């Protein structure tokens, strides 16, 4: 019998889906594999490819011990196809098919909808690796470099997971789409990634931390909703991806946290009380808190855009079809069909942002976004605790949903971070205080000098409290290949 907990290594592609006995899909994946390896090799600078990185690799889907740590060269990383164990007698959790047995095969009537969701999800996974490809060159420590690469290889594995679904369940079309996932490329003029936020380069490490905190959290919420899918293979795939995703959130939250910690520390060391003494703070080579707030404003609002329109037919269709659920669907106390429910969303009446009741089914995106905002505010609270503990009078906060939006009812409309409708002139005047300016970017860039000595950290960021895999502070997380 197939061991679904542990990963089979008897094919080129580690998996717990019995690939060795599924010749058709194995063949398809093996055909896709070289393209993937080329993509990977062309992506990240070569000396990092040759370096030994202390990475975790999924060896099981058992929540009690699913990963093992070891040194590995990234191109030799065992990207596998891993699905969470099949729940016994799982039922479709929402929509018009609620209560029916979860689908083990693609229902023909929802083939397109499913395929589209998987493609969009799949498109974001390699995109972030592309966006972050040059960050290794400016890593503030080997610890951070290792975390970056861990995130990268796992995003790569998530791509594998989506490609497996396309190959296994969507036939020739699916294979074509899997090829296109490698053809599109972040920021490419030829074939850009599907979502706007994934076509911007991640220019510096603070952006990387903000990205993993805010944008990967969007990814997490999307995975959470797909984990509720009535299409069981998708649900199982996403459930396992979520275990890995937690680390990405961790990298983001602690990365921003350590940046804040270091800034506070330096301010205290030099007796700076006013967080707005920006020039003085910067003269000590750390990133002032107002600039961190600006970065937060930018990344949070970009991430809100990823949730799409406030009122969405596609989201409604997907929920009602049972293809996509809500965050923690099983914990929600309602009929899970939303036949007569309403949900409050933002709308625009004249110049005024107003709250309006709409059919809950059409507001699925907003519900997920509200859950996201709540989820994202947790870390912000912890950052503020650290600032408070350091005795500095400053609070980070999430800007209002109307601020800096490109999608939805507020798109292109001037609102300030508190959600007040302002004139175009007022916006232009306020913008340098709300969003990072080119000068802010230049300053942050000036700090981005690599630190490759084990146990050492760049001056703008504090060391972590504990090491990865409980390793000591001076552990050599990456054995650099410096040929």
């Amino acid at each position, binding site marked *: 019998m197939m061991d679904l907990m542990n990963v089979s290594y008897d094919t080129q592609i580690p998996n717990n889906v019995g690939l060795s006995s599924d010749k058709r899909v194995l063949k398809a994946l093996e055909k896709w594999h070289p393209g993937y390896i080329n993509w990977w090799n062309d992506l990240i600078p070569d000396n990092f490819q040759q370096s030994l990185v202390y990475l975790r690799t999924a060896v099981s889907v058992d929540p009690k011990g699913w990963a093992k740590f070891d040194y590995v060269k990234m191109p030799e990383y065992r990207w596998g196809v891993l699905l969470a164990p099949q729940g016994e007698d799982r039922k479709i959790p929402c929509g*018009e098919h609620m209560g029916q047995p979860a689908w083990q095969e693609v229902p023909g009537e929802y083939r*397109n*909808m499913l*395929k*589209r969701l998987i493609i969009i999800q799949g498109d974001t996974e390699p995109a972030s690796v592309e966006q972050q490809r040059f960050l290794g060159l400016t890593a503030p420590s080997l610890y951070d470099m290792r975390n970056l690469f861990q995130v990268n290889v796992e995003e790569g594995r998530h791509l594998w997971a989506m490609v497996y679904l396309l190959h296994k369940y969507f036939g020739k079309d699916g294979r074509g789409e899997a090829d*296109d996932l490698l*053809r*599109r490329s972040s920021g490419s*003029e*030829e*074939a*850009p990634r*599907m979502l706007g936020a994934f076509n911007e380069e991640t220019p510096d490490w603070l952006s990387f931390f903000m990205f993993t905190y805010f944008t990967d959290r969007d990814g997490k919420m999307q995975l959470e909703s797909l984990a509720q899918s009535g299409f069981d293979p998708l649900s199982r795939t996403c459930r396992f991806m979520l275990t890995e995703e937690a680390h990405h959130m961790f990298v983001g939250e602690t990365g921003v946290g350590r940046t804040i910690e270091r800034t506070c520390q330096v301010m205290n060391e030099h007796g700076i009380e006013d967080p707005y003494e920006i020039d003085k703070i910067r003269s000590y080579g750390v990133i002032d808190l107002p600039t961190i707030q600006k970065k937060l404003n930018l990344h949070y609002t970009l991430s809100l855009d990823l949730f799409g329109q406030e009122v969405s*037919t596609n*989201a*409604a*269709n997907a*929920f*009602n*079809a049972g293809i996509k659920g809500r965050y923690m669907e099983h914990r929600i106390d309602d009929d899970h069909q*939303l036949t007569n429910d309403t949900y409050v969303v933002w709308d625009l009446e004249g110049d005024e942002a107003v709250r309006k009741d709409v*059919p809950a*089914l*059409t507001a*699925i995106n907003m519900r997920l976004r509200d859950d996201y905002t709540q989820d994202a505010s947790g870390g912000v609270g912890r950052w503020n605790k650290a600032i408070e503990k350091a005795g500095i009078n400053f609070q980070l906060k999430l800007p209002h949903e109307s601020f800096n939006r490109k999608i939805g009812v507020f798109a292109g409309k001037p609102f300030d971070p508190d959600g007040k409708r302002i004139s175009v002139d007022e916006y232009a005047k306020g913008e340098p205080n709300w969003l990072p300016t080119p000068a802010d970017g230049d300053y942050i860039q000036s700090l981005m000098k690599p630190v490759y000595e084990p146990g050492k950290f760049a001056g703008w960021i504090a060391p972590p409290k504990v090491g990865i895999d409980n390793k000591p502070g001076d552990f050599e997380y990456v054995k650099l290949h410096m040929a």
Partner: protein
Amino acid sequence: MSKTIDFQTDPSKYRHWRVAYDGDVANLYMDVDQDGGLFDGYQLKLNSYDLGVDIELADVVQRMRFEHPEIKVVVMRSGKENVFCAGANIRMLGGASHAHKVNFCKFTNETRNTFEAAEEDSGQKYICAVKGACAGGGYELALACNYIMLTDDSTSAVALPEVPLLAVLPGTGGLTRVTDKRKVRRDRADIFCSIEEGVKGQRAQDWDLVDEVIPNSKFDETVDERAREFASASQKATGNGIKLDPLDRKIGDDGSIVYSLVEVDLDRAAHKVTITLKGPDSEAPATIEDLEALGDQSYLLRLARELDDAILHLRSNEKELGLVVFRTQGDGSAVLAHEKQLSENADHWLAKEILAYWKRVLKRIDVTSRSLVALVEHGSCFAGVLAEILWAVDRSYMMDGEFEGDNRPMAAIQPSAANFGRFPMGNDLTRLETRFLGAPEAIETIKAKTGTSIEAEDADKLGLVTVILDDIDWEDEIRIFMEERASFSPDAMTGMEANLRFAGPETMETRIFGRLTAWQNWIFNRPNATGEDGALQRYGTGIRGNYNIERV
């Protein structure tokens, strides 16, 4: 939806389209203002359109012909990022009455046909540059262009998702142009029309859904290049263009309309409208330069514009007037003089455009779903192009002999050379050929009478009119006919007339107006689409259409 729809607009009022003129190429950008819907209750997101958007497009297309004869190639493109056009607005369709949907589709079909035919009629070629999603009515816009270019960014696709998404058809020529114009193999067309996401990249070209697939980085450049190539290969007759000023139009409180050459009188109690066309109020211009100097005021152009507007107005705003009576009054020979000047200069851009416009207006009459009747009275001028109306209508009645107290010139019909090929119907036959499908020799006899005035008895013998009536019978017979007509079911009338009008061969055009539209209108009436639980009504709610699976 009961407000009056005005089909007249001009560039100063556009909300949805922009044109950038660049030598002999025009770039036509669709950039729909989502808050600019004709009615309340929907937003025109993602470059989706309603009748208002299409009225502007029709105006653009018309002005391109008359105001910008220097333009040889029009490049249709999107003014929005990531989307070409999402097609007709679904919420608008969901909320619209059946009659509005049908009128909307008819008008959009006519506009598609107009820019599609612009290349053949006057050498103005429409090409389509597709970047972003191009779905449903969006792809139908592209299909009506004569060259489709698609970017290969691995996302942009062409699609006809109506069937899987909305349980209706791509009814603005979509199904028909895929098979008849682009000649996509029927089984591939079957796949194409069943998949929401459509077809992208190389496959779109392999399946003949587009003419050219271009790498994204070279797309804009290649489109410009192609436009230049087509323009330099074009033999189009060009000129300086004339301005189309607002129509001289007065709408009375009772709904009657008076134009400079057209009068529209309503008889609501009898569900009847009478359209009277006046003969020339000036002599035919002596030279083609004189014609140009007259701008939009030359007789046949002014008459065509006014008649066109009247027909469109009645179709959308006066749906209970089921019987349309055409009359003319004026000097038939003067009509012929104006027509002759155009025919003799048919290579001149303006003469060519006016004649081609008459072809379109007459076709508009052909597909108007009203009982059409013409009265050939004393003093009338059914000559040449105006005589076509006699063979467009369902029945015609002609005065025979002297009428007491009537001193107008004796009723006569004057055929001209233009009646034998200048104004083909949608079936590609002339109205006379369609009329005499079983007796082609009759056409030769009529041809021999070109330039003469044919009075009632001869007209009857030649089969040019339905019935001739003398003084004694005229009033009563016509009254009885009209009362009888008004008593029939409007639906049965529409169906019967549409079937009887288009004898003879099928063309892509007749298949669009006949087959595709008829099926679409049937589906529009079926619960699976428009019932409370139908897919069109439910679209946007997240709940699928609940289909009655019985095949009919």
